């Protein structure tokens, strides 16, 4: 659970970064990359914690 919260907080920081720092034409690519990293993190986390 702590892992999910940490990952979510990091993703929210990522969203803020994309909103403020990334050029408007590139924002969607930023969100796509964030989404990929977040879902991959959740999946790998689930595998890691259910295996241990």
């Amino acid at each position, binding site marked *: 659970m702590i892992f999910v919260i940490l990952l979510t907080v990091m993703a929210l920081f990522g*969203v803020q970064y994309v909103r403020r720092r990334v050029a408007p034409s590139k*924002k969607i690519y930023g969100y*796509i990359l964030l989404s990929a990293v977040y*879902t991959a993190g959740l*999946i790998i986390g689930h595998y890691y914690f*259910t295996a241990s």
Partner: protein
Amino acid sequence: MSAIGLSFIWEFTKRDFSERFAGSMLGAVWALIWPIVNLLIYIIIFGKLMGARLPGNSDTYAYSIYLISGLIPWIAFTNTIGRASTIFLEKKTLITKVSLRLPSLVIFVGAAEAVTLAVTYAFFFIFLVVTEYPLNRHMLLVPLIFYLQQVLALSLGLLFATLTTFFRDLKEVVGITLQLWFWATPIIYVQDILPNFIKRLLVLNPAVYFIDAYHDIFMYAKLPSLGAMVFLVVMAHGVAAFAYWVFRSLEKDVRDAI
């Protein structure tokens, strides 16, 4: 997330439901009745009347659960692609009158399908609990797998919506392709009945990765292959980036063509 207009998507999703059942006495209750009827058909006809069984499993409801766990997400997947691929043409009056971000129209289709799927899955879980089917912790992965399949569906929807504006015949091609894709994916049959050379070709079918994941979780209570899941993440987001790039390259022409 103003780049995609969340408030717009929320409003359109609500309107989609209210318009779908506008004028009926029961209203949005129909959104609950449809999934219940569909589930009962699969359970009663395949489980009880036809007595369909999975190889090596004598459970009365095993085939129904196998079928439902793959078919519900598949319906959401194909509905999303099918509806999204014509959304620019359907909403052309709105697009020409109001300044709006076109990808938001595609995303609202995915959101509306997600609500329908969530309701259906809620009834499916009630059925699993009532029949004392063993639940497992891997079911926590189901929302993630659904999210990834919808990212893929929305991306293909955006790609087809862009191209359908120029080639109207593409709408029919998408419909036929989805029908063929359904039969090329092990949803109502199990992979084991296929000849070896076709089984090897299944790795080329992107839908197999998420349909197999649902089957692994619901039927076999095991984790889907990590490699397949990582591939699904990369593929879904890669297609999303590509579809958005194509859309951005053609956006001006799309608006002109509409």
